[in-house]
């Protein structure tokens, strides 16, 4: 039997597998079926009961889940705390493919793990298919202007997978959960978390939002984001922004989309008062449907939107919000 396909699960603040972790588990199950290999989920976290609970949740998607209690994981940065134990587990069981979520924690963990294992990494995967006996990884490159397929040249590979590669779907029957204690032979210097500081009013995350309403310079100022937030609320979406308005301090960096911010792929992207400069375009142009609301009929965004409403956003957006609320009522 070929080497197993593993999905490494990231946990949210409540200790449950994130949506990205559920997607990875679903992906691993499908790849393993095509490869004739085992599908295995791995949960790493602080505390035996936490990882047991998360493992049980993940087992809805996978036949086998391994849990690893990492003492001190709660008080330290994730990569150095978890990578040595995961490296030991990988050396012991030799999976062919290890899927890791392309999130900040996932990238940190994958980089540290690759360094310990000297294993190649395929990054930025938008989709993974089993092809000719190996995983073929689709990537959207150069800001969405090119789609590439890449395959490993080695037998054992790590793959970083972006949110939205697949729709998470539970298996027909839940799998087993087994606690394991790999004997780590590597050590990495730990980084202590002195304190965790919550923003006063944390905005909904844009990472895996189905709908994003983004504002640019056209909203005029921090107060202008009120109409953007209202529309996002009415649509059940998240608020995004361009770099210019983040630099201006109108909204937090966590919401920035584009070259030095995040790359997103929602089903609906509404660009409000956004001209569509290349630095923004590279972060959103692979979105499903793109709607622009802009005064300027010659703005670059017109070139790659599906629908453009020409006009004053302060006249259009509140009416749109009201119309959506009326529909829902």
């Amino acid at each position, binding site marked *: 039997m070929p080497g197993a396909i593993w999905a490494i699960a990231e946990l949210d603040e409540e200790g449950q597998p994130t949506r990205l972790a559920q997607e990875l588990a679903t992906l691993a199950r499908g790849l393993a079926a095509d490869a004739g290999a085992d599908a295995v989920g791995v949960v790493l976290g602080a505390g035996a009961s936490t990882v047991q609970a998360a493992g049980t949740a993940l087992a809805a998607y996978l036949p086998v889940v391994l849990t690893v209690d990492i003492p001190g994981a709660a008080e330290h*940065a994730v*990569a150095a705390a978890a990578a040595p134990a995961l490296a030991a587990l990988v050396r012991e069981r030799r999976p062919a493919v290890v899927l890791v979520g*392309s999130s*900040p924690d996932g*990238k*940190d*963990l*994958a980089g*540290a793990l*690759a*360094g310990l294992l*000297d294993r*190649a*990494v*395929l*990054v*930025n995967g938008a989709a993974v298919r089993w092809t000719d006996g190996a995983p073929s990884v689709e990537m959207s*490159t150069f*800001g969405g*202007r090119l*789609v*590439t*397929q890449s*395959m*490993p*040249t080695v037998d054992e590979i790590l793959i*970083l997978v972006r949110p939205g590669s697949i729709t998470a779907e539970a298996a027909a029957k839940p799998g087993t959960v087994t606690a394991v204690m790999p004997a780590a032979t590597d050590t*990495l*210097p*730990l*980084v202590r*978390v*002195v*304190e*965790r*500081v*919550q*923003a006063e009013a*944390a905005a909904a995350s844009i990472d895996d939002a189905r709908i994003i309403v983004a504002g640019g310079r056209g909203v005029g100022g921090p107060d202008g984001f009120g109409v953007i937030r209202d529309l996002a609320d009415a649509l059940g979406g998240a608020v995004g922004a361009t770099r210019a308005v983040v630099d201006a301090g109108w909204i937090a960096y*966590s919401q*920035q989309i584009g*070259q*030095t911010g995040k790359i997103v792929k929602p089903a*609906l992207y509404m660009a409000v008062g956004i001209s569509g400069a290349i*630095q923004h375009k*590279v972060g959103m142009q692979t979105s499903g*449907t793109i*709607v622009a609301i802009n005064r300027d*009929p010659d703005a670059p965004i*017109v070139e*790659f939107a*599906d*629908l*453009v409403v*020409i*006009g004053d956003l302060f*006249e*259009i957006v509140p009416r*749109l919000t009201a*119309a959506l609320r009326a529909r829902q009522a």
Partner: protein
Amino acid sequence: MRIVVLVKAVPIVGNERLGDDRRVDRANGLEANGNDEYTLEAALKLTEAHGGEVTLVTMGPAPAAEALRKGLAMGAARAVHVSDPALAGSDARTTATVLAAAIRRLEYDLVFAGADTSDGLGGVVAPWLAALLGLPYLSYGSRIEPGPDGTTIQVRRLGARGYDLLEAPMPALVMGTQVLGEPRYPSLRGIMQARTKEIATWSLADLGIAPDTVGAGVAGSRVTSTALPPPRAGATVVREAPDAAVAQLVDFLAARRLI
């Protein structure tokens, strides 16, 4: 405080293309990766406040030196350009290995790297490098400050809902984001001074690395096919008065089952 700042020269955003060999074409104009300039700015501010110097390190073909020249004009003291024909087509594994070999030859308290590069979007070289060098790794920094007793570094790590304050002893590797603050423009004086600053060029032989252990030949993956994304049909442009425009927009969203 001696800070090594890693800079990647990437294709100018919007101009990226693959060459005939299906590798990123680096002969079509390069610039410093966006986030790298933010970490350089943070490094310059730290050395201005606490003393010390900034050394730039890049790995890349000859035109990558332009990105170093700009960093020197911004205020870095010197630069190291790791360049060797055998490095063409290197993957993240080779990049981390070669950068680790270069950094081991330098004296430093901190190594800085920028978040995700615009050409690769991998985001794994920095933690990989930290693992190879055995350095504490503090990532997604929005603020970097020396700890209270001067032997540690404190970094605010951005999260979805705020930040974690991280602390580790130096030497350490810090990966930074745009939130560190806008990079300065090189002054005329800085540009003049940069002309006399040293850019050391190191080959694989200088680093004691065998050419057959790096480059495209040992890359862990290869591009098997490329395609253009499906084209958009072209925008429907709505120019009606607000009420009529909103009615059209709602119909459009409903037809696509988005509401």
